[in-house]
């Protein structure tokens, strides 16, 4: 048993080395497949971060009538926070709103002068509401438009921003769905290309496989070395793909950050380094070992 096992390993390495060109070509194709998959994982991270950034920018504001008491607003804030859709609320009092407004327009002397002329605070108190999912703003807005609240609420910003929010929702949805479909298609292509390459490599060995059967070798003894070879392809292609993607990420990361400032690609890559590397190796090994297994199987029927 052990003797057979060590022979299988030995022949796996021997085939690998003696068919240097074939091995190199096969590794190159599996490398491409793994590289594409790795790029997809990173692309998905980029897309997710970009989508999250956009989603974070969406919120709705409720403006309260100027005579509404603060504790009534705070009561509403409490009840809003009780809703499962609501992620965060932020209360901005009339005074805060004024201070912020003045700070923002401090170089605009006409506006500042106009406010001073008025003598009283023209701004309304408001609640900024963020939902977990942008689709829920419609529901939150309906909740706020309830008649019992109409005595205190001046307006809800959703009405004015509805079109923008809906458009953003549809863009985000399309991006997510597109990402999934793209991932599936490209993964399928990569897997099929890698599988076919290994199949061709083993096709060139079909004669040897039938000879081994006729000499009385068991299927496992014939198959074993090819699977060992497949595992070697997977490991080497995985390492190669990582060796190329690491400097590439370092190069790309600053450019990505200029698109979406919240995105730290390099940091993501560094913290997930071992997880990503093991994905690559595991996927590479399984892909090539299974391909070898399936490909050899066809020629064992002697």
């Amino acid at each position, binding site marked *: 048993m052990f*003797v057979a096992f060590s022979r299988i390993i030995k022949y796996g390495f021997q085939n690998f080395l003696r068919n240097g060109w074939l091995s190199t070509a096969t590794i190159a194709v599996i490398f491409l497949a793994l590289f594409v998959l790795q790029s997809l994982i990173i692309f998905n991270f980029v897309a997710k971060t970009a989508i999250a950034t956009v989603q974070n920018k969406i919120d709705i504001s409720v403006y309260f009538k100027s005579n509404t008491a603060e504790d009534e607003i705070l009561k509403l804030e409490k009840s809003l926070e009780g809703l499962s859709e609501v992620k965060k609320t932020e209360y901005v009092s009339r005074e805060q709103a004024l201070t912020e407004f003045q700070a923002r327009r401090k170089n605009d002397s006409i506006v500042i002068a106009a406010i001073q002329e008025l003598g009283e605070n023209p701004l309304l108190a408001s609640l900024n509401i963020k939902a977990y999912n942008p689709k829920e703003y419609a529901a939150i807005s309906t909740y706020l438009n309830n008649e019992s609240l109409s005595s205190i609420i001046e307006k809800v910003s959703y009405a004015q921003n509805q079109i923008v929010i809906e458009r953003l929702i549809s863009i985000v949805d399309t991006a997510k769905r597109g990402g999934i479909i793209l991932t599936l298609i490209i993964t399928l292509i990569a897997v099929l290309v890698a599988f076919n390459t290994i199949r061709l490599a083993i096709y060139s060995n079909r*004669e*040897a496989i039938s000879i081994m059967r*006729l000499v009385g070798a*068991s*299927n496992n003894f014939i198959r074993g070395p090819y699977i060992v070879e497949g595992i070697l392809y997977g490991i080497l292609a995985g390492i190669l793909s990582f060796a190329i993607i690491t400097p590439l990420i370092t190069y790309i990361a600053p450019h990505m950050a200029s698109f979406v400032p919240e995105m730290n690609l390099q940091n993501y890559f560094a913290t997930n380094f071992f997880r990503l590397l093991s994905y690559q190796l595991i996927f590479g090994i399984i892909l090539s070992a299974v391909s070898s297994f399936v490909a050899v199987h066809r020629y064992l029927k002697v």
Partner: protein
Amino acid sequence: MITFQNITKAYNKNSIALENVSFKINPKEFVSIVGRSGSGKSTIVKLIIAEEKPTNGRIIFDSYEVNKLRFSQLPEYRRHIGTIFQDFRLLSGKTVFENIAFALEVEGRPQKEINEFVPQILNLVGLNDKMQSFPYELSGGEKQRVAIARAMINQPEVIVADEPTGNLDPFNTWEIVKLLMKLNEMGSVVILATHNKEVINTLGHRVITLDAGKVIRDEEHGRFILTN
């Protein structure tokens, strides 16, 4: 040793390779199977090594009922037979030494035995200086001697040779035939499928003659006669 009982083999409806063939091969016999191309010689060889299954009839080899062997039993069964082919069928990615060692490795023999036996056999077929060569570096005659060495290394009860000299010149043909005779003297049954008239007539052993898938002659000291 080997018994064919009413064997019929049809590859498809229009091509019947063997029709109701029966014969019995005894231990230590040297049997030649002759016939024109397409007479069914190779089919008999394929049936013996279970590369093909008969359409009808029974094949008995020692305690095996060959036509009933399951796929998973074939490797073990084939280790009892040494097979030699016209096209040599060596493993092109392995050296001469490794090709012969492979027949022992499939049985799980220890490396020590392999290192001892393989040079002995290579010595017997006169190729001990080619141990580390690859098949493509050998001549046809040398390749066939490697194939014979591989067939005999695990001392099988039966050696089956399908046109082993078909691709060789007369000189190499005789080298191969002498080796087969030597194997027979050492106690193995040798089954030789050939259409080489000279070889058959010189051997003076049993000859089974086939024509169009039927046995037309089975003589103890036969000669190469293809017609009735």
